[in-house]
């Protein structure tokens, strides 16, 4: 029996019951299409997040403050990082840009417009670390930090919401009733994974701490962000910062760090793992429909074996060996699965690419995975769902089969 014979026999059997075969194939089409679309969704999310983080560069390091502790007991909410820590870290040779950072929200007024936005206290280096470019004006300098000047760099969305003129440099806005001079407007950057990057105001850290927050600990900050030189080693710098901060915070051997250091590389790896799990979850959900489709094939094949009992008897009587019967039924289930998988693949890729490009205006990444997956599914699902019916058919007694009504 040649491959041509096997395929011909399978095709005749499948096409002999068109509606039933179509419905069975439909199950696989939906299953494979769902998996292919979910892979595309997962990869799009992963790519979008990775793109955003990688645009910041992998040489960015963030130090976050923990709470103050005494012999392992948390002694209050006081933040452990300080502006002085920042200045000390700045002395490390590999540090290119550094800034302390403290966030808050503030009610901002311009004329009769009132807008609530995110407020960030930082050094001007923050703009270099985040690759923020200016649309109008220029960033404040370190003198402004030293003097706790009321200077503000505003995001384009904030400027729009406040109804500021096109070039608002020199305009006064009120942040918590304190007048600030707008020294610059950032270029639009779009949304990030954490929300809009264009609706915020950056002011000197000292201004935030002393004039707006009136903190009891004006030196304390929640975060220090730094960018190291591209040829510097992240791990070496992290070790240096750790050692420096432990020394400065007078931590003894065995004491836990009262700060956390993460670099963008770690964050990207973590995000990659998280989005990887998300992708797996999506595929797993879609795979359920594929499983249902494969059960459909098995069901159809079992019905087919029952219906064709006499045919199997005739074939065995005229010389078909068990393996020939097995191959024939397996090839039928693989053919159904293959047809369904290929149609599902085409529809899945077409839909995900089409919706991405023409509706969402996003370039959905094309991956070879759905193709490999579909072919694997075709073979595995076809074989898995066909093996039991095929063995059942092969083991039929020719005498009983020939008598079957």
């Amino acid at each position, binding site marked *: *029996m040649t491959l*041509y*014979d096997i395929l011909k026999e399978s095709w*005749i*059997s499948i096409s*002999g019951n068109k509606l039933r075969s179509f419905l069975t194939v439909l199950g696989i089409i939906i299953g494979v299409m769902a998996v292919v679309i979910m892979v595309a969704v997962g990869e799009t999310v992963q790519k979008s997040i990775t793109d955003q983080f990688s645009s910041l560069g992998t040489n960015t390091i963030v130090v976050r403050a923990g709470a103050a502790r005494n012999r392992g007991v948390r002694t209050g909410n006081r933040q452990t990082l300080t502006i002085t820590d920042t200045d000390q870290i700045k002395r490390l040779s590999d540090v290119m840009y550094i800034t302390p950072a403290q966030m808050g929200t503030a009610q901002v007024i311009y004329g009769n417009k009132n807008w609530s936005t995110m407020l960030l206290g930082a050094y001007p280096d923050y703009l270099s670390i985040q690759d923020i470019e200016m649309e109008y004006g220029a960033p404040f300098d370190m003198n402004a930090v030293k003097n706790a000047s009321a200077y503000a760099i505003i995001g384009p969305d904030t400027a729009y919401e406040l109804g500021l003129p096109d070039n608002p440099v020199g305009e006064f806005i009120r942040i918590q009733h304190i007048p600030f001079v707008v020294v610059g407007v950032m270029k639009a950057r779009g949304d990030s994974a954490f929300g809009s990057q264009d609706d915020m105001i950056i002011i000197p850290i000292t201004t935030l701490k002393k004039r707006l927050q009136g903190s009891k600990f004006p030196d304390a900050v929640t975060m220090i962000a730094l960018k190291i030189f591209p040829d510097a080693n992240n791990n070496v710098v992290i070790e240096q910062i750790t050692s420096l901060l432990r020394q400065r915070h007078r931590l003894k051997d065995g004491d836990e760090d009262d700060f956390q250091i993460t670099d963008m590389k770690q964050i990207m790896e973590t995000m990659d793992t998280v989005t990887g799990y998300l992708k797996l979850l999506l595929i797993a959900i879609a795979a359920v429909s594929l499983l249902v489709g494969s059960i459909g094939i098995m069901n159809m094949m079992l019905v087919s074996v029952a219906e064709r009992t*006499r*045919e199997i*008897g*005739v*074939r*065995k*009587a*005229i*010389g*078909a*060996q*068990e*393996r*020939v019967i097995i191959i024939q039924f397996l090839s039928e289930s693989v053919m159904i699965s293959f047809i369904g998988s290929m149609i599902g693949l085409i529809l899945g890729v077409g839909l995900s690419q089409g919706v991405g490009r023409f509706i969402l205006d996003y370039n959905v990444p094309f991956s070879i995975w759905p193709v490999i997956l579909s072919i694997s599914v075709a073979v595995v699902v076809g074989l898995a769902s066909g093996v039991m019916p095929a063995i059942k058919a092969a083991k039929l007694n*020719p*005498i009983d089969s*020939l008598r079957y009504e």
Partner: protein
Amino acid sequence: MNKEIPIIVMNKICKSFPLAIGGIQQVLFDITFTINSGEFVAIMGPSGSGKSTCMNIVGALDSASSGTYELYGKDITMMTGDELAVVRNEYIGFIFQNFNLLPKRTIIDNVMLPLMYRGFVMEDRIRRAREMLRLVGLENFETYFPTQLSGGMKQRVAIARALSGEPKLILADEPTGSLDSKMGTEILRFFEKLNKDFGITIIMITHEFEIAQFAKRLIHIYDGRITYDGAIPKSETTLLKTEKRHKK
């Protein structure tokens, strides 16, 4: 060259089946006969006599519980299912009461089926199948489907299929059972022709004496035993007498 080798040598074949309620039931007892090449034999017996079981063993569809069975010089008693499938394909052509054609295959596809399992290339299959269809007078129907043919034509297709593999033996199980008497006679005359003109060995299972009369030899089975083996008797009474003797 193989003229001397008998087609079938059955020696003390017994067959028993396990019963659902436990124990076993023996249905064939010491069946012994030899069939030579070119014979036309009718195996006859009433319903439940064991003739179908005997046919299944002769046709290598079933194995005997004891005894030996040689088909064309080959002992097939202990063969596996797959080995028996090869034997059936090479040595036996089956003709069934209800034709057993594959309804979704064309006539020529049905005739080519044994050749496909034998591994013939497509050209040889088509050539041989066309020859056989010409032999049974259906050369113009090769692209038809079985449902488009009459009962007699279907049985002629079944004969063409049985002959396509050039078997040593044609085994026909009640070949006229689904046909009217005119068609039945036509088929039986065709068997006579195949046997006489082409020297094909035919074993025909039947429960009707009138049909058995077309054969040259009759083996009568009653209650699992052979009660008569010889030339076709002039009347069925001879066979009934053997049954009575057996009962006693």
